[in-house]
């Protein structure tokens, strides 16, 4: 019934049905203005017009899943690669991009390989990188560190001593927006990568549940526990959120010394506390772990965002032409101008035109030399796993559950 209805109707619909339109669905936020410009550029020359649709923040993934198989489905949509598109590939909704790439090799060769590979599912490419890369970095308030007579820690042991010194000064050592849960997850991502190496998590995503009970896994949990118990995050982190500005404000106003956050922290702070960014904001990588299996240069975070294409699109040529813009000079300049960091091979030559050149260059070099870029756990697993992961990390942090319960919860995740 649903199918026949969908096939007959639709001519009068605003979305999906238009005969000479392609709908581009993106995550609604400040970056949309660059996407709007790009769509305008595209529409100047193309007979098939692109229409930009946005879904605001937190509900993007749920809205996408509810419309993607119906007649409101877009032609092209924003995603995080990895597990975020796996269910759609499995359901046969997405178009493998081999043909596009065969006709226009730049769709692959013009992007950094490690980034491009995150959207490869079952050996086939399904996503073209768009927007930028967002590694998670350890941000700090240099003034607070100086007052306590410490510097940003390079190793985990240094971090523990720094925490003690800061606590003695009456400062919350690390700001954490635990109310959002994903900032808590960032600590797990990094510590697991440092201690057990990237292969460990990859096995877990592939369905090997035993790795969660491994010695490395337990060691990582033990180290985290030590940091929590040492008062590294204070006591009320679960009442703090990043998304309502709570945790960045802690850092900027000097009530906390560190925050582990995605690279967007910079522009967030720039908006609200420009003076702090100019004078006292520090940034660096996650501390190294002695004897750990993961390379100290490994990164974690959002590898990139991607555009994927639905099989049902009526205008594949137009879509291919649109995707070609993702490595154009205009795109790269536009993204850099608002603080994003695209991962095209031509990015480097435009870094000087970035909103904050030093910061962009620093990130670009990190990403380029990183042996592995760990995709955020909640995006590596399919969306259905997110709730469980968030609950497990939060309950481990606030002491409601111990390592065994955490391990059991992670073993119950649906495999990707």
């Amino acid at each position, binding site marked *: 019934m*649903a199918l026949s*209805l*969908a096939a007959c*109707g*639709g001519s*009068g*619909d*605003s*979305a999906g049905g238009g005969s000479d339109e392609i709908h581009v669905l993106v995550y*609604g*936020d400040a970056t949309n203005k660059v996407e709007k410009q790009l769509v305008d550029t595209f529409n100047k020359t193309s007979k098939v017009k692109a229409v930009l*649709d*946005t*879904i*605001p*923040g*937190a*509900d993007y993934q749920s*809205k996408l899943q*509810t*419309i993607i198989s*119906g*007649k*409101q489905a877009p032609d092209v949509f924003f995603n995080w690669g990895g597990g975020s598109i796996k269910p759609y590939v499995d359901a046969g909704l997405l178009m493998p991009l081999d043909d596009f790439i065969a006709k226009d090799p730049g769709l692959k060769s013009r992007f950094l390989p490690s980034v491009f590979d995150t959207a490869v599912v079952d050996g086939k490419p399904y996503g073209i990188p768009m927007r930028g890369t967002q590694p998670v970095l350890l941000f700090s308030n240099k003034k607070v560190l100086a007052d306590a007579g410490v510097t940003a820690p390079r190793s985990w042991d240094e971090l523990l001593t720094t925490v003690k010194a800061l606590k003695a000064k009456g400062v919350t050592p690390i700001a954490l927006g635990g109310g959002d849960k994903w900032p808590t997850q960032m600590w797990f991502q990094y510590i697991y990568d440092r201690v057990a190496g990237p292969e460990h998590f990859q096995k877990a995503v592939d369905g090997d549940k035993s790795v969660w009970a491994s010695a490395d896994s337990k060691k990582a949990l033990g180290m985290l526990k030590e940091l929590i118990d040492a008062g590294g995050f204070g006591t009320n982190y679960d009442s703090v*959120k*990043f*998304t*309502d*500005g709570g945790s*960045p*404000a802690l850092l*900027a*106003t000097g009530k906390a010394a560190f925050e582990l956050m995605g690279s967007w922290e910079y522009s*967030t702070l720039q*908006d*609200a*506390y420009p003076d702090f960014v100019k004078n006292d904001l520090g940034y660096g990588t996650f501390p190294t772990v002695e004897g750990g299996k993961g390379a100290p240069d490994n990164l974690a975070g959002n590898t990139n965002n991607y555009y994927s294409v639905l099989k049902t699109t009526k205008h594949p040529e137009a879509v291919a032409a649109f995707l070609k813009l993702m490595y154009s000079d205009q795109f790269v300049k536009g993204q850099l101008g608002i603080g994003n960091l695209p991962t095209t091979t031509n990015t480097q030559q435009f870094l000087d035109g970035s909103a904050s050149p030093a910061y962009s260059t620093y990130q670009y070099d990190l990403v380029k030399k990183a042996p592995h870029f760990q995709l955020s756990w909640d995006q590596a697993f399919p969306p259905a796993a997110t709730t469980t992961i968030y609950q497990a990390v939060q309950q481990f942090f606030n002491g409601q559950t111990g390592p065994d319960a955490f391990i059991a919860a992670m073993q119950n995740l649906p495999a990707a």
Partner: protein
Amino acid sequence: MRGRPNYLAGFGSLIWLFVVGLPLYVLLVATFQSRADYAANGPLAFPERFTLDNYVNDLDQGFAQYFLNTVVVTVAVVGIVLLLVPPLSYAIVRSDGKATGRVFRLFLLGLAIPSQAVIVPMFYLINEAGLYDNLLGVVLPTAAFAMPVCTLILSGVMRDITPELYEAMTVDGATPWRIFLQLVLPLSKSGLSTVVVFSSLQAWNGFLFPLVLTQSSENKVITMGLYDFQTEHGVDIPGLLAAVVLSMLPILLVYLFARRALVQGLMGVGGK
């Protein structure tokens, strides 16, 4: 009557004034300062540098459009309810057919159906009807779920019309239609105003249906504007609170100019 002042009650009422007033004070004060000042001075401090930027920014970001959408939804919901519920209540009170009795019990059952319970198939139906991301798609279910309470209220009021009045008109050979227009509606004014107040509050406050059934900013209602504001512009508490103030302005105006009707209408929710 109870003439001498009741100090205990007076004291209690002042405590409640504090409970009600404190957050409202925080709300107002925060909206007139910049983010940095709010973070630096705390929620209770009076603004040092007074600014209207938060309001201006909010309006720039489309809040005017959200208002308009909310007004459209509210008017449409109230319209549907006013069109359908009075005849239904009249039938429930005056019909002697068994079918209407069953319908009444159906609506009583409807009181216990939370809108969350049907949200999944509702999404499916609205989507199939081509009404996804369309204000009409929000209006229809919102009106349907406002109907049980409205029916209960209105049939209660109509039941108070004495049978003698009906009989008198029937003896004169009046049709149900004439009785409805000349007797029932004029005597149900209080109930009708309660129904208007109740259904417009439902529409004005609606959250789940717009959350699931709309997506684009052209079709955003105020509650969604607030919700998305929280996730999209995460960091801006004063801006968010200014949006809260803006969202209450229209109802505040209604309250200032029609306090009596609004209050009477709400008292009616609890029965006469």
